[in-house]
């Protein structure tokens, strides 16, 4: 097991390096790192920056120059705010991690339950409604859900019932002056997490349902049923357990896809996370933030993949032997 993990980690490193070069090249070709500086009309400053960033050298040299400072923790300064990039990304990571964590957790639980229910009660009204909802979830973009959720669950109840406050909040993760894990936090989380996870639950539950059906129609389950093992045991102990492996893999890999939903959700719910940082930097052409941002996200995805592989290996011993 240990060697498995080490092998996977070592394998990830060259992938990240190549990815970083591709990103570096893409970003440098698209954006002019000196755009903001040029507007200030200070020719010496422009020349200084060209020297510092090595913009007059080949792209490969520039890359290594950048890589060296990146690895030593010098991520430069944002051209938009003047703050250190490391600080900006660090501050933005925490809210995003919270949102992603809760989003994934709830999505996995809900998708899992929905899958089991749908598979067990196949063709029932419940199954049909849920699958119908899944299609809706796949068809509509996250911002559509976000706004509808806000209107339906926060604004309308307050106005309709004349409440002093909306039942659920939708700005940021805490009310001003509050912190920590409390009711206020939960009331802030419900709507953004819901908006985020709808598409995920929709896809995963379709998939999980199929995996469950597969498992339930397999030989050993039929044998167990013939032997008279109680239905509940069959469902949970056998079918679910065996559909868990592919389910976990899918979940972990879709985590990478989560990012698109995160950007939009953070925008609507005013959460100061990585998504917002990306948008602000993109609009301002702030190359100095964009590049480290992408690397950080790529590394996060690699970690997720790694966890997925480990999880898969734990659940399915055959994989370890490959």
């Amino acid at each position, binding site marked *: 097991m240990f060697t498995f993990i080490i092998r996977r980690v070592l394998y990830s490193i060259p992938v990240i390096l190549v990815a970083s070069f591709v990103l570096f090249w893409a970003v440098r070709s698209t954006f002019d790192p000196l755009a903001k500086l040029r507007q200030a009309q200070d020719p010496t400053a422009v020349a200084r920056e060209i020297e510092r960033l090595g913009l007059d050298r080949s792209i490969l040299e520039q890359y290594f120059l950048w890589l060296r400072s990146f690895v030593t923790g010098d991520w430069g300064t944002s051209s938009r705010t003047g703050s250190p990039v490391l600080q900006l990304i660090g501050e933005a990571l925490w809210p995003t991690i919270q949102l992603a964590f809760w989003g994934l957790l709830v999505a996995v639980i809900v998708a899992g339950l929905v899958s089991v229910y749908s598979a067990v009660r196949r063709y029932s009204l419940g199954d049909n409604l849920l699958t119908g909802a899944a299609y*809706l979830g796949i068809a509509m973009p996250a911002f559509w859900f976000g706004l509808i959720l806000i209107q339906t669950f926060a604004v309308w109840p307050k106005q309709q019932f004349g409440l002093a406050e909306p039942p659920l909040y939708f700005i940021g993760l805490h009310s001003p002056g509050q912190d920590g894990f409390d009711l206020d936090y939960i009331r802030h989380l419900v709507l953004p997490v819901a908006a985020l996870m709808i598409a995920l639950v929709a*896809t995963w539950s379709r*998939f999980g349902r199929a995996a469950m059906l597969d498992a339930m129609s397999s030989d050993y389950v039929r044998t167990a049923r013939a032997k008279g093992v109680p239905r509940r045991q069959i469902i949970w102990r056998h079918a679910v357990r065996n559909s868990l492996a592919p389910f976990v893999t899918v979940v972990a890999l879709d985590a990478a896809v989560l990012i698109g939903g995160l950007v939009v959700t953070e925008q609507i719910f005013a959460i100061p996370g990585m998504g917002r940082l990306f948008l602000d930097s993109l609009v301002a052409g702030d190359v100095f933030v964009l590049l480290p941002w992408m690397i950080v996200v790529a590394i996060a995805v690699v970690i997720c993949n790694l966890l997925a592989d480990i999880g898969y290996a734990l659940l399915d011993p055959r994989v370890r032997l490959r």
Partner: protein
Amino acid sequence: MSGAGLAGSEELLAEQDVQQGSGRQLLQRFLKHRLALTSLIVLLLLMIVCFGADWVAPYPQGQQDLLLGPTPPSAEHLLGTDELGRDFLSEILYAGRISLAIGLFVALLSTLVGTTLGALAGYLGGWVGELLMRITDLFLIVPAIALLAVIVQGLGPSPVTIVFALTALGWTYIARVVRAQVLSLREKDFIDAARGIGASNLRIIIAHLLPNLAGVLAVGMSLAVASAIIAESTLSFLGFGVQSPQTSWGSMLSQAAGYVGTPQVYLLYFPGLFILVTVLAVNFIGDGLRDALDPQGKHL
């Protein structure tokens, strides 16, 4: 782009027993699925009215009535009018041209590229296969939305660049799935038999492998169409999608986002409805195709 990273499904799909059927048998099975058939008709209808909007739309494109402004659905304007007083139904049909085109082209192109590369990687194996897998890993790692935004920013936001950007990110899923399928098929008897009688690699790929991929491809393509339409609308919401004066359903959605809670909210719902119907239709067709090609129906 939800659903693009279902690598675990490769294993699952690779284990399925694919039934070979003759062309006519496939058609018969498909036609038995009334819902898939209906969806096909609906989709064709949508494509006709949208691509033929010049003839079908009740009003010419872009005919404004400044003083009218946005009005709710009425007898003259079946879906109401938009901010410029243009007939909303006509605008939706014209926008549909771009949305459907983007969705279908992305699905087609990414399937094409993905199938080719995936089949090659799976069949040839060895270092070619490994290299391809590493490249797809690369694409999976890079945050999709970021790369999309950067590409569109760099090349300029037009439907063509959007198709290019979405294809560049979309082919990886199909490639992985195809490769896994090909890997499992490679060892099967009928392939050995074909090799035994001296069939060339290319012939094996085209005549024997590809037909067996059809089920997988059907699912992949339908997912790809949905993802493409949604990705385009998300890009528009963030400001990087189709730019005015061109419109797509996605950009209409994003432009109308601010009308939630106002009487003009229909500006948000109608494009959404069209997207929904398209995605549903495509998914049902995909279901039908998959059932026709794999009547044991173990999946989804």
